[in-house]
C-alpha cells in the first residue's frame, strides 16, 4: 500500500516575512499551517478553498517554486527541500504545473514548438530532431494539429492555449501534475473538453493529479480525494464521497450551501419561495 503513495506531505508550514515600513512593524504571515497529505499513484486529489486560503502556496511548494519553512515533502520517494539541497534535474522531471490563466502563462514571442521543446532543451541532452518529433507527437496527444507547431500563442483560443500549457507540462513525462485552477478561466463547453483531455491523459500515462479548484461541481466530477483548506489549515480531508455526503467542518458546509444549484428541484423550490 505504502509504495503506491507518490506524494507524501507531512506537517508542512510556509511562512512569509512581511517587510515593515516607517508606520508598520515587520510581521510574519503563515500561509500554510501544518498540512499533511498522501496521494496515491494514478489518483486525483482536489484541493478546495477560497482565495487566500493557502492552496496556491501549497501548489508552489509541491512544484518547487517555493521552499517549505518546515515539514517534509516526498515525491515518488524523493525528499524535496529546495532551501537545503536545491533542485536537481531528476526532481524537475517528477512534477510539473499548469496554471490558471492560459493567456498569461505562455510567452507571446515564443512559437508553440519552442514552448514544448524548451523543457527538453533545458533538462535533457536530446538532439533537436528528436525533440521536434516528441513535440509533434505531444500536439496530437492533446488534440492539436502538427501545423500548430510554428504558430504563436495569440493565434489560439483560450481552450487551445490551455491544451498547449498541458502539453508543455507533460513533455518531461512527469509523475505528478499540479493543476492550479486549470479550467476556471474557460467557458463551460471548453471546460468539458479540457476535463475530458485530463481524464484521457491520466489513463494513458498513469499521471497523478493535484487539482486545485474553487468550483465544487468540477471537483465532484474529477476527484478521488478532496481536501478543504481554510486560512492555511486543512479543515476536511477524505474521499470524495465522504466529503460530499457527510461534510464535518462548518466551513465545508458553508461552502456547499453557497454553491449555486442548477437542478430542476432547486429551481422549483426557489420559485415557490418567491411566489409565497
Amino acid at each position, binding site marked *: 500500500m505504502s509504495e503506491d503513495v507518490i506524494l507524501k506531505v507531512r506537517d508542512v508550514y510556509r511562512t512569509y516575512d512581511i517587510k515593515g515600513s516607517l508606520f508598520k512593524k515587520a510581521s510574519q504571515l503563515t500561509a500554510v499551517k501544518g498540512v499533511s497529505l498522501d496521494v496515491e499513484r494514478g489518483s486525483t486529489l482536489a484541493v478546495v478553498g477560497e482565495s487566500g486560503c493557502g492552496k496556491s502556496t501549497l501548489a508552489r511548494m509541491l512544484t518547487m517554486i517555493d521552499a517549505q519553512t518546515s515539514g517534509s515533502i516526498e515525491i515518488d520517494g524523493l525528499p524535496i527541500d529546495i532551501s537545503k539541497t536545491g533542485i536537481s534535474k531528476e526532481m524537475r522531471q517528477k512534477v510539473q504545473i499548469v496554471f490558471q490563466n492560459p493567456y498569461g502563462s505562455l510567452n507571446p514571442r515564443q512559437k508553440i514548438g519552442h514552448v514544448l521543446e524548451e523543457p527538453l532543451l533545458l533538462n535533457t541532452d536530446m538532439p533537436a530532431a528528436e525533440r521536434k518529433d516528441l513535440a509533434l507527437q505531444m500536439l496530437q496527444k492533446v488534440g492539436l494539429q502538427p501545423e500548430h507547431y510554428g504558430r504563436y500563442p495569440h493565434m489560439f483560443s483560450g481552450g487551445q492555449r490551455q491544451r498547449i500549457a498541458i502539453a508543455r507540462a507533460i513533455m518531461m513525462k512527469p509523475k505528478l501534475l499540479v493543476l492550479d485552477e486549470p479550467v476556471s478561466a474557460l467557458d*463551460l*463547453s471548453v471546460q*468539458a473538453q479540457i476535463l475530458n483531455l485530463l481524464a484521457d491523459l491520466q489513463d494513458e500515462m498513469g499521471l497523478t493529479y493535484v487539482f486545485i479548484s474553487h468550483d465544487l461541481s468540477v471537483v465532484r466530477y474529477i476527484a478521488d480525494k478532496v481536501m478543504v483548506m481554510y486560512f492555511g489549515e486543512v479543515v476536511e480531508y477524505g474521499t470524495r464521497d465522504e466529503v460530499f455526503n457527510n461534510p464535518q467542518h462548518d466551513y465545508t458546509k458553508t461552502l456547499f450551501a*453557497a454553491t449555486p444549484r442548477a437542478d430542476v428541484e432547486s429551481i422549483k423550490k426557489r420559485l415557490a419561495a418567491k411566489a409565497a
Partner: protein
Amino acid sequence: MSLLEIRNLKVEFDTAKGPFKALDGVDYTVDAGEVLAIVGESGSGKSVAMLATMGLLPDSATITADKMEFEGLDLRTLSAKEKRKVIGRDISMIFQEPIASLNPCFTVGFQLSETLKAHTDLKGKQIKDRVIEIMTAVGIPDPAGRLNAFPHQMSGGQCQRVMIAMAIACSPKLLIADEPTTALDVTIQKQILDLIVKLQQDSGMGLIMITHDMGVVAETADRVIVQYKGRKMEEASVLSLFENPQNPYTKALLSALPENATGDRLPTVSDFAEAGGF
C-alpha cells in the same frame, strides 16, 4: 408596456479585417419586477447587447435596431445630454471587476456621492445621509466609518457592494448586472447574489443578469435568453429551460455541466454541434 423593449438589435464592429457582426438581430424585453438572465459563452454578444443599450460601446461599433425603448422613450434618438439623465439614474449597471471599476484615487464615500450630485437635488448633509443609508442597505459594516476608505482598503466582495450601492443610489427602474460575481469566491458570490435579488424584490425594479454560469441563472432568473455567436438560441422561463430545453445548443450547454455528468466523459458542445446544426 415593457420597461425595456429592443427589437432586432444588430451591432457591428469595424476591424482591420472588415466588419465583424457581434450581434445579429436579437430581441429583448424586460418588465418591471422581472429578472431576465442572458446566458452565453464568451463571444456570444451578451455583454455587447447591454453596452449598446447603455451607449457604452466605442465609436468603432455600428448599432442598429428597429426599436429601442425604455419606458416608451426612444433611446436611439436621444441626444448624449438627454441620455445621461436616464443612464445612471433610471438604468444603471454593475460590472464584473469591482476593484477595476472603482477609481483608486478617491474614497468610496466621494464616489458614491458623485452619482447623487449628478442626478438628484440633494445637497451637502442630505447626500452624506443618503450615502450612509445605501451603504447600510448593501450590508457594508460601519458605513459611516467606511466613507473615507479607499477601494484598495476593502476586499473584493466589499468593493462589489460599493458598486451595487452606487448602482442603486438613485433607485433605478432597471439594473443591469454584467457577470457581477465572476471574480468572487463562492461564499461571497452567494452573499452578493442574495443581496442583488433582495434589492430587486424590495424595490420592484427590472433586473438583467448577464452571466455564463448556469448555476447563477438557476438561482436568480425568472426568464432566460440563451445566446451563441451573436444570435438568440432560446428564450424560456427558467424552469422550462432547465426541465425541457428545446434548442440543441441549450441541451449541449446543460449536459456539459459537470454535475449532470452520467458517464466517464463529459459531453461537449461540439459533440452536439454536428447533430444540432448550429
